[in-house]
């Protein structure tokens, strides 16, 4: 079996993606020494190479746009290449945070009130008026984030009106649409979902306690700056609700093979859906590898099982 792990790309999360790719490739090699596992960046020579020597399966570990918005997956589908993970159309819905939130809300999940606005709206209606309306509609504290993208890039927690303009400028640097979301105080958890022959299964929730209180880029990728509890310190009923929320998100959005939902558990034990990732980070400090370890599942064996699923689909 020849497996191609795609990582890198041109997104702001290139570095994270490269590290995820390296780690998954290494785990696959260890789990299946008989397989040929190749790591590769995405560039203008990729398609010619795929045409000349098609792998049996592709594992897209591209984070950020093109990787998670479905674009590269669309191309893989056109080429008839099996790949691990959600199909292009589902990825597109999941990657767009406001769209994903709307869909999971319809399915009954709680998700914080949010408004997604392009820069043009602020320009046309006047930023002060729009920001005043947002303050009224959502209230402080709120979270400003790019509508698409991961790794907390461009994300700020805004506690008062004076902080809002700079936060908006920071989010718009990563994309044309910014989402403003009510800040929910509570325990931050991430729940991975993997599909098995018996259906999708939720992994143990990973509880995230960043030293500064904000799980930002530095807290995500500097070992030692965040404390994790796996499984999360939740009552059984709440842990079950979190697992169900992740499974609901996975199924509602039509995701495939694996995903990771990020949730906040409030004081009442309600899981609030924030976003879902179709190519979860797999670096040394990422969340899904910790969840797999806590569940006693070997990462390489799990990824190999997903590869076999993908190949069997064709």
């Amino acid at each position, binding site marked *: 079996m020849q497996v191609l792990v795609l990582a890198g790309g*041109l*997104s*702001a*999360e*290139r*570095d*994270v993606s*490269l590290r995820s790719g390296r780690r998954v490739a290494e785990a696959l090699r260890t789990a299946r020494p008989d397989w040929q596992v190749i790591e590769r960046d995405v*560039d203008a020579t990729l398609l010619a190479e795929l045409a000349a020597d098609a792998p049996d399966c592709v594992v897209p570990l591209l984070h950020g746009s093109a990787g998670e918005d479905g674009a590269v997956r669309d191309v893989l589908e056109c080429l008839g290449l099996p790949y691990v993970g959600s199909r292009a159309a589902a990825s597109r819905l999941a990657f767009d945070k406001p769209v994903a939130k709307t869909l999971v809300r319809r399915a009954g999940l709680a998700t914080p009130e949010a408004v997604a606005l392009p*820069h043009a709206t*602020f*320009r046309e209606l006047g*930023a*002060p008026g729009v920001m005043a309306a947002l303050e009224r509609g959502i209230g402080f504290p709120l979270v400003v984030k790019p509508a698409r993208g991961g*790794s907390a*890039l*461009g994300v700020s927690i805004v506690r008062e009106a004076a902080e809002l*303009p*700079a936060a*908006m*400028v*920071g989010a*718009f*640097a*990563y994309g044309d649409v910014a989402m403003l979301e009510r800040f929910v105080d509570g325990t931050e958890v991430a729940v991975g979902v993997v599909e098995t022959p018996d259906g999708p299964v939720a992994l143990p929730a990973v*509880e995230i*306690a960043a030293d500064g209180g904000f799980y930002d*880029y*530095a807290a*995500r*990728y*500097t*070992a*030692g*700056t*965040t*404390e*994790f*509890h*796996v499984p999360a310190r939740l009552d059984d009923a709440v842990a079950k609700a979190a697992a169900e929320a992740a499974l609901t998100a996975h199924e509602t959005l039509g995701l495939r093979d694996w995903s990771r939902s990020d949730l906040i558990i409030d004081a009442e034990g309600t899981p609030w859906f924030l976003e879902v990732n179709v190519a979860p980070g797999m670096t*040394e*400090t990422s969340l899904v590898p*910790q969840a797999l370890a806590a569940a006693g599942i070997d990462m390489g064996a799990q990824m190999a099982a997903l590869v076999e699923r993908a190949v069997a689909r064709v």
Partner: protein
Amino acid sequence: MSGGSRLDPWVDAYAARARGMTASEIRALFAVASRPEVVSLAGGMPFVQALPLDALAETAARLVRERGAEVLQYGSGQGDVTLRGQILDVMAEVGITAHPDDVIVTTGSQMALDLVTRVFCDPGDVVLVEAPSYVGALGVFRAYECDIQHVAMDDEGLVPEALDEAITRVRAEGKRVKMIYTIPSFHNPAGVTQGPERRRRILEIAKREGILILEDDPYGLLGFEGAPPRAIRADDDQQVVYLGSFSKTIASGLRVGWAVAPHGVREKLVLAAESAVLCPSNYAQLTVSEYLATQPWREQVKVFRELYRERRDALLDSLEQLMPAGTTWTKPAGGFYSWVTLPEGLDAKAMLPRAISALVAYVPGTGFFVDGQGSQSLRLSYCYPDADRIREGVRRLSGVIESELEIAQTFGTGHVLRNAQGPANPAPDLL
């Protein structure tokens, strides 16, 4: 909290100075800058492709073949004596006379920076640096827990009056100033050069106040106009530790630099070097030595000068043509960099993701300060991309700045342009 995992069992064992060593968004964005689609005006990589690579390959092969037992062995902690002699010839270009014994060869001048700081600075000692200053030096001073204080610059570099004031102010606070760190020629990142009078006054202040000057001169031979500027060290061999480098005149990958220091200092530097690395790489030193002995190195430096001058011109011409109003930049007479100041209210660090999306990279100005200054500035390097790529990079950057200005204007963060909305346009005149 306890009972959880921090994914790093040594988290409580690190020294205090490791606290700032964290992942950053900026570094993540630079990972994209290495892709060929991106015009990187960020890194200061010398254009080593212009070297006579075949000759260097032959030199390296011959060294191993004929002098392998020496080349591949440990060497002197102070560096190869032949090379130290040759370094005197190189330094003669900037007016320095010295003895081979005054020279210590280091693993790039970066290591010399480290050694000098190690020998002179206790935690809390003040180092005066230019505003902005070389990011690699700031990293060293920070690692030795120095109190880093910036001193103002103008178009002629470090301002003597500001230096005087800084010394007075710092001493009034009961602190001890150990060094003045300066890059007098073709400054990184500011792109400016101290004139002879400016150098004389800085030296005079240092002498009067009894403070060591750490003169960092990696770009001295890469001037585009006339003879290389005369080093401060050329006029005083006791007040100055001079740092030189072959990274820009030969090859950065060889990692060969040097320091010239007064006798007592030099003795300590050698001992410090021995404890840090035992000795600099013999292989790299002898490669440089052979190159200097057998190749027309002065001609090669001329090739580099011409190449970088052409690229500097491409940068300045396209900045002139394309930059939005309110943007200013320095006009370097040598070296690798121009320092760009954005229109009021723009933040170069916040703008970087937009630039990366537009496939152009630069270094945000805050990295060249320890105190948060520089948010409105950025450094552009013209050393690596060719003239066409530079023009394309500036074209992309100007679009990025225009977009960022629009956002800043919308949100009122661009102060000057806050009320820039014009009157309503009249209806087209159909009559």
